[in-house]
């Protein structure tokens, strides 16, 4: 079986600074994989290389077996790679429905149509309604994003990526900044993500990581320190020293 996402020996250097050092990573179809590491470990740079904002100095990125190393971010999305942002990146003056509509019409390749709108397609409107319903946001469909609570925006952040029906989903700190009172719905959503989607979650919240992930990669100083199952990683003394230890003592 071809992996959903495969990184082969990625290296990225800015001058003498090695931000990514020979990182290899394989996400099988449908896996829940967490990427953790202390601040400055190069998690963001790695994500940028996957999404195509930065091109690696060496190494390849494969999506469902196809080499996407030299493709633009837009083309990668078209091939099934979606991401969410650590800081909400929504269309603030548009309504919730319009936000979802943008993602759906982009996926359908209808975003450039001059004389028709996806509102004319009953199937796509049903789909949007179902998505909003599953997030408990249908009642807010006609509200503009800037009127919503932070936790609700966080849900829409993920909904936009889901509307693209990706095969690989990158979640960049999905619960960052969400108060625990609003977190339940978000955790619930994360656990109900489509089974066939491979998910790579970058997260600081260890509770979420241990609950959600099947496999964990620990990144330290741009290189993979450990990769393994949750159990293996939890038990690894190096991880405890570098990462978990700091947290527990701090």
């Amino acid at each position, binding site marked *: 079986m071809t992996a959903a996402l495969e990184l082969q020996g990625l290296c990225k250097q800015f001058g003498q600074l090695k931000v990514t050092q020979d990182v290899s990573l394989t996400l099988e179809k449908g896996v829940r994989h967490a990427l953790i590491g202390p601040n400055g470990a190069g998690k963001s740079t790695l994500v940028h290389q996957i*999404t195509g904002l930065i091109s690696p100095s060496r190494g390849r990125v494969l999506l469902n077996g196809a080499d996407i190393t030299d493709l633009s*971010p*837009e*083309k990668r*999305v*078209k091939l099934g790679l*979606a*991401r969410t*942002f650590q800081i909400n*990146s*929504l*269309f*603030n*003056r*548009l*309504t*919730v*429905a*319009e936000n*979802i*509509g*943008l*993602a759906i*019409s*982009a*996926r359908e390749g*209808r*975003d*450039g*149509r*001059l*004389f*028709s*709108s*996806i*509102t004319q397609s*009953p199937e796509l*409107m*049903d789909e*949007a*309604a*179902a998505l*909003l*319903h599953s997030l408990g946001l*249908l009642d807010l*469909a*006609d509200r503009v994003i800037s009127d919503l609570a932070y936790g609700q925006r966080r849900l829409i952040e993920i909904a*936009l990526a889901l509307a*693209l029906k990706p095969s690989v989903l990158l979640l960049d700190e999905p619960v960052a900044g969400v108060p625990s009172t609003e977190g339940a719905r978000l955790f619930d959503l994360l656990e109900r993500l489509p089974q066939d989607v491979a998910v790579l979650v970058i997260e600081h919240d260890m509770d979420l990581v241990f609950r959600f992930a099947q496999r964990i990669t620990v990144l330290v100083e741009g290189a993979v320190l450990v990769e393994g199952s949750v159990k293996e990683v939890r038990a690894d003394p190096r991880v405890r020293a570098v990462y978990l230890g700091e947290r527990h003592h701090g």
Partner: protein
Amino acid sequence: MTTQSDAHRVVQAFRRQRYNLADLALVLAAALTLLFGEYYLALAAFVVIMAIFALSLDLAQGYGGIESLGHAAFFGVGAYAAALYALHFSSEPVSGLLVAAVAAGVVGLVSGFAVLRTQGLTQLMLTLAIATLLYELANVAKAITNGDDGLSGYDVAPVFGLFQFDIYGYTGFVYAFVVLVLVYALLKKLVNSSIGQTAQGIRENQTRMRMLGVPVERRLWVLYTISAALAGVAGGLSAQINRIVGLDSLAFTLSANVVVMLALGGTGRLYGALFGAILFVVLSDRAAAIDPTNWLAVLGVVLILIVRYAPDGLAGFVARWSAKRGQK
């Protein structure tokens, strides 16, 4: 479970630019002008031309978020194209307008290649530079444009062979108004369709649009080209109705004026462009009649008041007012 009514709710949550009372009022105003304002028809035609021009800018700026201080480039190219067409090929006006639209559209297409790679202040400066370049080009190419003196002495045949342009300006006004209605209808259709939504998405958050897989530059390019072509139509109308095209049709003042019109009327709502054009032209005309030396100051004061008390322009003010009424 979702039901049909859920989908209906989602459809309702897409805000559309519908035809409303403001549109009806504007049509009425045009009819009244035609009936009772016979001495003001030339001015009214100018209002209509500026309204089309401001609408074209609203598509690029209000919807697509493309900043322009050089939109006169397209107005001027359209005007010169229509005049040259009338002078050398045919005096038929409708085909002349099409030529104006195509010429300006091509300039938009080509210059968009550079302009749309930039954003913000850089973009503003680039549009300004392109307009200035064209201005100087028209100034130098005297053999074609007649330089400072401007192009004149061309004939414009009756519209559809039926309606002769008269010295009172009846035909000119009605002709321009019909074109305005068509342009307005086209824009309503465009902004309510996918490209209109996409444009707003790009205006709000370009990065996210890319991450939804949207080819942002290509979409903006289409938008900018259409905007340029419509500005060219406005220029073409001006050339046909006024029977003269001068360098001022490419000048910075015109580019700046249309930005002010849009600021007064409000961006991203289409009818704001109409309000803005009316307010700007009528106010300038009246103020200049009263005080020929200091009339610009009046515009300045109005602009300050609008920016201070109605930052979304007149249209934004009206929208907020009617939203409040709707809640009661």
